[in-house]
C-alpha cells in the first residue's frame, strides 16, 4: 500500500508542477480568450484576474485595458475601472466605446466634477485632437514636414522667379500644415506625460499639507480624477479641475 502510494504522489506532484508552469507561461492571447469566456459567463472576478496577469506579462494593449475596465465595472469597482478606461484611452484616444464607458462610470461616482466650460470651437478642436491616435498625428507631421522642406529645397535651384515664388508659397503652406500636426502631437504628448491620477480609496481626506496633522480641506471619493503635481515622501500634491488642490497620501491615488 505505502509502496504504491509514493510513486502516485510523485506523479501527482509532477502533474501539478507542470500545470503551474503551463499556467505561468500561457501565451497572452490564450489568456485573453479565456478571460473573455469567463466574462461571458459572468465570472467577472476571474476575468479581471486574467486580464491583470496579461498586463503584468508585458502586454500593453488598449483592448486589454478596456476589457479589464469592463470587468472591474461589472464588479462594482469604479475606481480601478475608471483608471483602466483612462489607460485605454491614453493608448488609443480614438476609442469611442471606452470614452462612452468612462462617461457612464464617471456618472456613477460620488463626486461630481464640473470641468470648466470651453468655447465651442476650442472644445471641438480639443476633442478632435484628443480623438486622433498619436501615430496618425506623428505620421501626418512627418509627411507634411518632408514635403514642405522638399519643396523649399527646389527654390534655390529654380531659375524662374515665378516658379521660385510659387515653390516658396507652397513650401510655406505645407510647412504650416506640418506645424499644425506637430502642435497637435505635442499637445497629446504633453497630455500623456501630465500626471493624472485616479482615487482608489473609498474616501480620501485632502489636507493642506503633507502630513496627518494638517487641516482637512475637502474629501474626495473613489474614481475621482486629479492632476498629480509633485510628491513629498509618502504624500502627493493634487489639484482638481475646479481649482481645488491639496495633499493626499500617495498610496490612495494611482497614476494613469
Amino acid at each position, binding site marked *: 500500500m505505502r509502496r504504491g502510494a509514493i510513486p502516485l504522489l510523485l506523479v501527482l506532484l509532477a502533474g501539478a508542477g507542470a500545470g503551474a508552469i503551463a499556467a505561468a507561461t500561457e501565451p497572452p*492571447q490564450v489568456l485573453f480568450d479565456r478571460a*473573455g469566456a469567463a466574462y461571458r459567463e459572468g465570472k467577472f472576478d476571474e476575468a479581471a484576474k486574467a486580464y491583470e496577469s496579461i498586463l503584468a506579462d508585458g*502586454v*500593453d494593449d488598449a483592448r486589454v485595458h478596456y476589457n479589464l475596465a469592463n470587468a472591474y465595472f*461589472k464588479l462594482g469597482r469604479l475606481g480601478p475601472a475608471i483608471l483602466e478606461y483612462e489607460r485605454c484611452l491614453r493608448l488609443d484616444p480614438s476609442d469611442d466605446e*471606452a470614452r*462612452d464607458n468612462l462617461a457612464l462610470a464617471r456618472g456613477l461616482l460620488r463626486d461630481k466634477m464640473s470641468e470648466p466650460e470651453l468655447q465651442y470651437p476650442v472644445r471641438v478642436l480639443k476633442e478632435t485632437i484628443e480623438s486622433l491616435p*498619436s501615430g496618425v498625428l506623428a505620421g501626418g507631421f*512627418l509627411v507634411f514636414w518632408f514635403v514642405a522642406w522638399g519643396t523649399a529645397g527646389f527654390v*534655390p535651384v529654380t531659375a524662374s522667379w515665378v516658379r521660385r515664388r510659387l515653390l516658396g508659397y507652397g513650401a510655406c503652406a505645407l510647412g504650416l500644415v506640418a506645424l499644425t500636426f506637430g502642435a497637435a502631437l505635442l499637445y497629446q504628448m504633453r497630455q500623456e506625460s501630465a500626471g493624472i491620477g485616479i482615487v482608489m480609496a473609498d474616501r480620501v481626506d485632502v489636507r493642506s499639507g503633507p502630513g496627518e496633522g494638517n487641516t482637512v480641506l475637502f474629501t474626495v471619493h473613489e474614481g475621482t480624477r486629479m492632476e498629480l503635481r509633485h510628491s513629498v515622501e509618502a504624500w502627493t500634491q493634487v489639484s482638481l479641475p475646479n481649482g481645488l488642490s491639496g495633499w493626499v497620501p500617495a498610496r490612495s491615488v494611482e497614476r494613469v
Partner: protein
Amino acid sequence: MRRYGAGAVLLPAVLFALLPWLATGAAADEIRVRAQVDRSEMSEGEDVRLIVEIAGPGLDRVGPPDVHDLGDFTLSGGPSVSSRFQWINGVSTSSKTYTYALTPNRSGNLTIPALAILAQGRTYRTNPVEVEVHPQGTVRTPFASPSQSPPQPSNPPPAGGRRAGAAPAALRIRSEVDRREVYVGQQVTLKVVLDTQSEILSHGPAESPSFPGFWAEEITLPERTEVRRVSIDGEPWYEITLMKRALFPTTAGALSIPPVAWQVQVRRRSADPFESFFFTPTEMVTRRSDPVTLKVLPLPAAGRPPGFSGAVGSFTLSVAADRTESRVNDAVGLKVRVAGEGNLGSAAPPGLGDLVDFKTFDPKITSNTTLQADRLRSEKVWDYVVIPLAPGSQTIPPVNFAYFDPETRAYRTVTSKALPIQVARGEAIAGGPSVAGLPQSDIRLLRRDIHYLKAAPGGLQARSVPFHRTPWFVALCLAPMLADVGILAWARTRDLSPQASRSRRERRARAAARRRLAHARRLMKPASAHPFYASVAQALTDYVGDKFHAAGAGLTHERIEALLAERGVPDDRRAAFHRCLEACDFARFAPSSSDDAAMRSALASAEEAIAGVERSLDR
C-alpha cells in the same frame, strides 16, 4: 396596585358609615376593633372585601390582624392599609384600616371568624362576620342592559355629583394592543376596554381620540355591546370593549399610543336605602387609560427589492387585459389589482415595465378597505389604458409588486404572467395603399450599460515606446532641414561661377530695366525732359547689355540691332526697339518739342519694346 386602588375606592364610604361609632369609641380612650364586609350576599367564585378597623389612641404600636385562620374563606388579596387621624373638641382619635379580599371555599351561610389583633401589648378580637354565599350564577350582573344607548357625554349626570355616603364607582379604562413590537406600516390593533364592577348606564369618549405617528382606521364594533365577565385578582369584573382601531405606525422608533379618555355614567351605590329605592342615583366619571409604548422597527435595508412599493402585509397581484386582440391605436384596458392583508394607502403603483410599442397613460386608481377579524384588508386597483403603436404579437411584460411581509420578516415580490396581445394593423392601413403610415416615435433607450468587451483577432501589442518618442523621430525631423541647407550651399557655390554670374545678369535684365524706367518716370516733367529721355535711353541700352552680356556703354544703335537680330528677335520688334531709342535721342537734343504727353508715350513705348524683346526671347 390594582387591589389597593379598589380598596381605596370603598374605604371612605365605610369610614363615613363608622364615624358616629368612632367618635364614641375615641371618647372611651381605648382601642376598638371591628370587622366588616362590603356585602353580605355573594356568588360562589366572587370575592368579598373584609375591612378590619382599629380605632383608638397610639395606633403606632398596633400589629396587623392575624389572618391565619379564615374558616371557609381563603385570602386572595391584601391587605391594603390606610390610616386616619382626627382632632375633635380637643380630643384626638386615630384609626387604621386593613382591607382584605377573601374568596369563599363553598356556598352557604359562612362565617368569617374573629381575627386577633395585638395592640399596645393586648390582644383584641374582631367580631365574626356572616356572609351568605350563593351557588355560582345566581346573582344578577350589575348591568342594567347589555345593550347601551349611544353615549351622551355632554349630558349632566342625572343625580348630580357624588353624594355623601356614596360608594365610588369601581371602574377603569385600559388600552390593549395585540403586539408591542411592529414594523413601520404593520397593523397594531388597539382595543380600549372598560373594566367595571359598577352598573354602567351609558358611556362615550370624553375627547376625540387622536393617534399622532399612526395611520388609524376605525374598526366598527358590533351593535350589541360585548360584555365579558372576568376575574381579576380573584374578583369578578365586567369587561366592555369601548373602541377598536387598526393603527399603522408611520415612523420607526419608540412610538406611544396616547391615553384614551372615556366618560362613563354609572349607577351609584347609595348608603341611603330610601334613595336607592325611589331614585336611580347615578354618577358621571371620566377615566383615562395608560399610554402604550410600541417599539416600531424600520423596514430592513438588506434585501430590499428595487421596485419596493412600500406596502407592508401580505398581498396578491393580478393583471388582466380587457382584450387579447386589438388594432394599432385601439386602446386596451389593463387592470392591475393588488389585494391582501395590510394597508395599501400609500403603496406605489406596480410599474408596467418598458412598453416600447405602447403608449401608456396615467392609471385611474380605486382602493377599498374591509375588516376581517379585526385585520385590515385592502384592495387597490390601477386601471391603465395602453395604446398599441405597432402591429404584431405584442406582450405586456410581467408586472411585479414588491412588499414586506412582517410575519416572515422578509421582502416578497409577486409577479403576474406576461399578457400576449395580438395587434392588427389599424383601419387606415388595412383600407388600401393610400395609407397614412404607422405612428412614429423616437427609439427610446431603455437602460444604459457599458459597451461590451473587445476582441483582439490580430494579437496583442507588447509594451513599447511609440516611434514619436524615440530619438529617430527627432533625427527624421532634422533630416530635410539639413538637406535643404546643403542644397542652398550648393546653389550659392554654383552662383559664384562666371557662367552663373552671366546667366544671373541675363535673368535679372528685365527687372533692372524696370527699375531704371521707374526712375525715369519720376523725372517725367517738362523741366527735366533731358534727364528723363536720357534715363529711358539708358534703360533700353542697359537692358540689351545685360541680356546679351555686352558693356552698355559701348553699345551703338547698330550693335543693338545686330545683337537682337542674332538672338532671333523679329524685325517689327527690333524696329520698335530702334524707333524708341531714336525718339529718345531726338527728344534729348530737341527738348522744346517734348511735352508731358510725348514723355508718357516714350515711356510706354520703351516698356512695350522691352516686353516685346522679352516675349521673343522666351519663345
